[in-house]
């Protein structure tokens, strides 16, 4: 379906559109490389921030908290996953963005981050949003560590921390599965990112502290006026096709990793 809709732009530009960096429908330029780069950058940074937090959540819930608090803490994490993304976007735009701008500029001692809405803001927001998804997968795996293995670990005199690290290694494919699921989420997230990424779809930037664009936010921000240009809508469908292929590839990898481990 996406391919059919995207066909006109492929017929005109070939796959070169994925290698061009200028999006300017008025001048008939439909490059999406800058969005592709933005998607990669934001999701990689987001994952780098989210994975430690996700592991922290899983360990805190399964190892540290007493069972009553465990339910409450678990509910809070689930609620974070259920929260509408547009509310994250609203908060990110008015609170997190200015806060990060202040923090970064103070730390760097200069105006490094020139706007509150940048790729970096989007990454931090994404990290907060995808953490529960990764945490849920890791917890699921964590619960599957056999009692005998756990007893063996403590039996040789391991401390709590050593036991945790060993168990995490035991369920490493779940940790990786959570990693890929969260990556897929981060790549596909639209509205919250569109609100804080800055909407700079015209030029390529690899500077995290500048306004940028991602594939999904390009679609969200540009679809409204796409119908005024012959090739803009096909180009956006081509971008969506790319996003869908990424989504399928990453999620399949995650599912493969998780299911491989199951008996």
């Amino acid at each position, binding site marked *: 379906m996406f391919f059919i809709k995207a066909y006109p732009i492929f017929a005109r530009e070939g796959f070169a559109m994925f290698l061009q960096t200028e999006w300017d429908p008025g001048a008939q330029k439909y490059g999406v490389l800058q969005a592709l780069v933005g998607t990669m950058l934001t999701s990689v940074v987001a994952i780098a921030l989210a994975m430690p937090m996700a592991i922290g*959540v899983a*360990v805190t819930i399964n190892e540290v908290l007493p069972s009553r608090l465990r339910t409450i803490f678990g509910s809070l994490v689930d609620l974070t996953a259920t929260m509408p993304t547009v509310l994250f976007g609203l908060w990110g735009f008015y609170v997190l963005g200015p806060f990060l701008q202040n923090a970064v500029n103070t730390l760097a001692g200069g105006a490094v981050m020139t706007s509150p809405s940048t790729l970096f803001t989007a990454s931090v927001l994404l990290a907060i949003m995808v953490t529960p998804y990764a945490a849920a997968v890791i917890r699921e795996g964590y619960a599957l560590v056999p009692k005998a293995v756990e007893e063996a670990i403590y039996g040789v005199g391991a401390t709590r921390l050593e036991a945790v690290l060993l168990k995490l290694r035991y369920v490493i494919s779940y940790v990786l599965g959570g990693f890929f699921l969260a990556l897929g989420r981060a790549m596909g997230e639209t509205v919250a990112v569109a609100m804080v990424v800055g909407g700079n779809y015209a030029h390529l930037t690899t500077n995290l502290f500048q306004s940028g664009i991602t594939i999904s936010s390009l679609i969200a921000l540009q679809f409204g006026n796409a119908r005024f240009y012959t090739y803009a809508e096909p180009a956006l469908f081509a971008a969506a096709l790319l996003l*869908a292929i990424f989504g399928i590839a990453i999620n399949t990898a995650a599912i493969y990793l998780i299911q491989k481990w199951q008996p």
Partner: protein
Amino acid sequence: MTSTRKVLNWIGMGLFVLLGVAATIPLFLIIIDIYSKGIDAINRLGGLWHFLTSEPPSPLSKSGGVGPPLIGTLYMTALGAIGGFALGFPLGVYIGEMRREKLANAARVGVNVLVEFPTITIGLFVYAVMGLVQDDLNRYILGPVSATLKAALGNSVFYNYVSWFVGPLDSFNAYAGAAALALVMIPYVALITASAYASVAQPLREAAYGIGGREFNALFIVMRKVVSRAVLTAALIGTAKIAGETAPLLFTAFGNNYYAPFTGSTGAVSLWIYAASETPYNVQIMSAYGAAAVLLTIILILFISARIKAIHD
């Protein structure tokens, strides 16, 4: 145990807890931020009832609300949830209970991929399908149906409701939005239903089939007790998820600031927040925060009732 290992243990575990807590702090910050600014905004824009019923403020007006978007959200979420559950639940039973069938495996992989799929592509997909079928749908089905209905209803009060609810459809309409929401919900409900059925103890399953009834009775009467809690929770949380979705609605419902037929572009609270928060007008930004408070309340009610149900049983 040497003291270095003890210290390392403390530092390590402390770090894990710190990271875990850090992941939940933003949740509190967001809730506090939205309620403190949102309630203030609602009061300044004309009080709760006015806010819930009136049309969104124009840049120059002093008061306004989220009436039309709220109706749109409720309508599309209800339809989407019904559709999502009606298709997701049987699919889940199929995947979970008839695991050995070839197709069930394919369905499981498909559902697993779909549940994590970028929701904006789901919206685009529905938009593309809508573009294909709209003409034919209107010409061959909805046109005649609405004409018949209008003729049958004559000049009763329901006459106008035909074009409000039935058709013909515009390219952006509430039903496309509901369909996109249902597509978001189906895999979620299916997955949880499947895992609930898969977790039914084998002896119970054998007993259920063993008493010789039809498979239907075994699935929906005997095992109902075991899975009902998980399935209900899935339905409620799934509804909460789609109530706040924005991306699938961007190109399907499109958004609308006025009380308008569901057959044309329809507003949603999430769409209004998205649109209003980036305007330069203070009154619209305020209304975005008020709308956020309303949306958050809906989500929290659904979420908490799901949790209470889960703890109660």
